[in-house]
Structure formats: C-alpha cells, structure tokens
C-alpha cells in the first residue's frame, strides 16, 4: 500500500515539475492513463522510481522531449472509422458548402493521418481550395511527422480499404507516391494546411472555424479539462458550426451538453445550437 501511495505522490510531483519547467500541463489528464504512461516510461528509461525520472527530466530538456513521446498517445490511421468520414461527407459537406470560405480545426492532429484524410475528402468534394485547415498538437515530433506526410507502405492497404468504405471517389494511391517502402503524400494536399503547436489545456482560441474535429483526444482528459476544451470549441465555432468527436467520446457528461445538438449521434457529429 505505502509503495503505491509513494508512487501517486511522485507522479503528482513529476507532473507539477513538468508544468513549472516546460509549461506542458498534464495536471488535468485522466489519472489512470497518465499513471500507466509514466510507469511504462520508467521501464523504458530504466528508472527505479518516478523521483529518479523527475530528476532526469528536470535537468535535461531532451529527456523531457523523450518522455513527451510516452505521455502522448499517437494512435492514428488514414480514414480511421470510415463510417464516421462517410457521415461527414454525406451530412456535413453539403452544409459546409454554403459558406464562401471554410476554416477547419483538427485539434490533436498527432502525426497527420487525419489531416490528409480530411484534405482528400475536401478535394474530392471540390472544397479544398477554399478551405484553411489548422492542424494542432502539443507534441513537436508528431507535428514534424505530420508536416512531412510520409507513412509506411505497410499501412496503406488498410488505409485504402478505409478510404473506399469512407466513400472515396478514386483510389487512395492517387494521393501518394511510393518510394523506399514509404508512401509520400501529395504535397499539394497541405497547401492550405497550417500546422501549429497548440494546447487545449493552456492555450486559447485563435480563429473562428466552421468545423472542428477532435478525435480520441478528450478521453485522456478529466471532466474539468474536457469542459475547458469544449469551451474553446464552442467559442471558436461560428453559428451552427460542426464539432466531430471520436467514436466513444460524448458531450453527454459535459457542462456543454445543451450547447450542441447531435446531427449524427452514432458518428459523434454535433452542431452548435
């Protein structure tokens, strides 16, 4: 029992130290998950205690950047949850068209798969040229990968299958070049994409938007931080703008549940009411 108690104290101290030194705020992340991430990092860095890890992180910024890779969870796919993107194409795109220019915020874009999926969808719908996409994340390494748009060919078979199920009008291979076992995404897809460092925990709204996609990010936040994020989204979205969440995420337990209405509830597509 007392060892566990010590671990809990050390984790709080580590998270506080990270906040004070590096301004990354994990204080309102879901406790169970952050504890597992830190314990996993302990094994990777061969640290016996969280205090030992804290000493290294505090005195060596490169160590913090390594730890950050464990604290964030880069799970992503192109055209992930195809039914979801099919619903975006069928239910949201016809309404998006009615705006002369469109701004989209992909919050927590990780390594960019979702950004390129959205860009491909918009190009096929003839909207990409009048759209600006803001793709934000707290992890600089993930953002760098997102900007490069280079993915392993091994995953492309799955992504191509997803693309077809999501209502793709051509072939996914129309949008990348294969080289040395990698798929290099057509760079014109990111002509209108701005990649930026942004934290839902500490930063504020930077633009008015018509659509915000934030998928499988909020599950790592506690209710307080979820409500902060929903507050930012509510402020950023224009009148009747769209919010899309991950397939297991919901506004139901949030203070903002009555400020949005469900457009396609099973696909977590909401509209500002």
């Amino acid at each position, binding site marked *: *029992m007392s060892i*566990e108690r010590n671990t*809990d104290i050390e984790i709080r101290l580590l998270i506080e130290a990270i906040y004070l030194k590096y301004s990354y705020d994990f204080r309102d992340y*879901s*406790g*169970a*998950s952050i*504890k*597992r*991430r830190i314990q996993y990092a302990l094994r990777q860095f061969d640290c016996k205690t969280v205090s030992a890890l804290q000493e290294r992180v505090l005195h060596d910024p490169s160590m913090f950047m390594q730890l950050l890779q464990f604290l964030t*969870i880069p*799970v992503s796919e192109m055209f992930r*949850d195809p*039914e979801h993107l099919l619903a975006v194409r069928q239910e949201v795109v016809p309404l998006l068209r009615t705006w002369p220019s469109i701004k989209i915020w992909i919050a927590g874009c990780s390594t960019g798969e979702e950004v390129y999926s959205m860009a491909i969808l918009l190009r096929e719908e003839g909207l990409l040229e009048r759209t600006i996409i803001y793709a934000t994340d707290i992890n600089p390494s993930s953002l760098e990968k997102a900007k490069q748009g280079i993915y392993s060919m091994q995953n492309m078979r799955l992504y191509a299958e997803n693309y077809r199920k999501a209502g793709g009008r051509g072939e996914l291979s129309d949008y990348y070049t294969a080289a040395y076992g990698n798929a290099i995404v057509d760079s014109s897809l990111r002509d209108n994409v701005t990649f930026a460092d942004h934290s839902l925990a500490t930063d504020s709204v930077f633009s008015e938007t018509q659509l915000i996609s934030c998928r*499988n990010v*909020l*599950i*790592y936040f*506690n*209710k307080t931080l*979820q409500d902060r994020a929903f507050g930012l989204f509510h402020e950023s979205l224009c009148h009747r703008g769209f919010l899309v969440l991950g*397939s*297991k*995420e*919901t506004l*139901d*337990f*949030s203070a903002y549940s009555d400020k949005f209405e469900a457009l396609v509830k099973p696909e977590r597509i909401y509209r500002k009411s």
Partner: protein
Amino acid sequence: MNGVQAIALGASAGGVTALLTVLHALPPAFRIPMLCVLHLPDDRHSHLAEVLGRRLKRPVHEARDKEDIAPGTLYVAGPGYHLSVERDHSLSLSQEERVHFSRPSIDVLFESAADAYGPGLLGVLLTGANEDGAHGLARIKQQGGRTVVQDPSQAQASTMPRAALALHQPDYILPLNGIGQLLASLEAPEC
C-alpha cells in the same frame, strides 16, 4: 465478506457463458456496481451489453468515457478501447497499446480499479486462453481488495485462471456456481 463497493470481472474464451452463469445467481435488487472486461473481436460495434442485459434482466451498459459508476449496474468494456476506473469512481477509456494482445485488457481495468477502490474491490477472474488479468488480480490483492479465481479444472479454458494462481494466492478458488453464490451473499454498503 463485508464492505465490497465494486466488483471487477474479467474473462476471455468461454467468457459469455461463464459470466451469465455467475450473474444469474444475483438477486434483482443487487446494488453493488460491476465492471467487466470480456475479450472481444476488434469490431467497432459490440452487442455484448444488449445481450447480457436481455438475458440477465438487469441494467447493463457499454462503459462510456467520464460516466459516473452507478449502483446496481453492470458496465462492460466496448471493443477497441481500454476501460479504467478513476479515483473519483468515474470511468475512462483509452487507446494505449494492447496488453496481452488485448484492448480492452483485463489488467488495465483491474489495476485502475484496485487504485480507485483499494480494500473495497472484489476481483473475479474467469475462464480464458491467455494470461491477461493475472497481474491485475495480484494488484487488487496488494491494494487490500479480495480476489476470486474460477477453479481451473472446471474452466472452459484454464490458461487465464492458472496464470492468476501462479502469481498470487486468491481468497477463493471456486466453480462458477460457487462464485455466483459468493457474489449473491455480498451486501451493498449503506449509502
């Protein structure tokens, strides 16, 4: 056995039948909340909660992120996400890497529930063909909770209960009907 605030259950191969056998023994007014991970194929939608709810005639929900745990309800983990319990007795989902090739993983549920409930948790590990759940059950015991393992000689797949027994000595080793009776005899704490 007094003071059980929550029950965490884990099972894999043969788990639906085993779970139904155990939970059929519970009285309709049973108030202790139950949390369950049953290994599932990675489909996006699962009908497990509906099936269990219909067969057991009690409230069964697929666990939702940030939902508060309510008395008398069975929460089952949906496919593709780990299920955890937070210190404030709410649920959270995550997509961290698989544990024992599984997401949801029994270890993840058990370890987080052990932290959240301490001595107030009862862990139950049933039939299964891999070793998920063994570490989590040991953690429940270590945090002061009670543990039950299905008698491996009577389990449809004995790997999972055997792995648990190799790691720690549970409070009970019982066949399914014995586990059902044990749970039915628990009383929910006064609220």
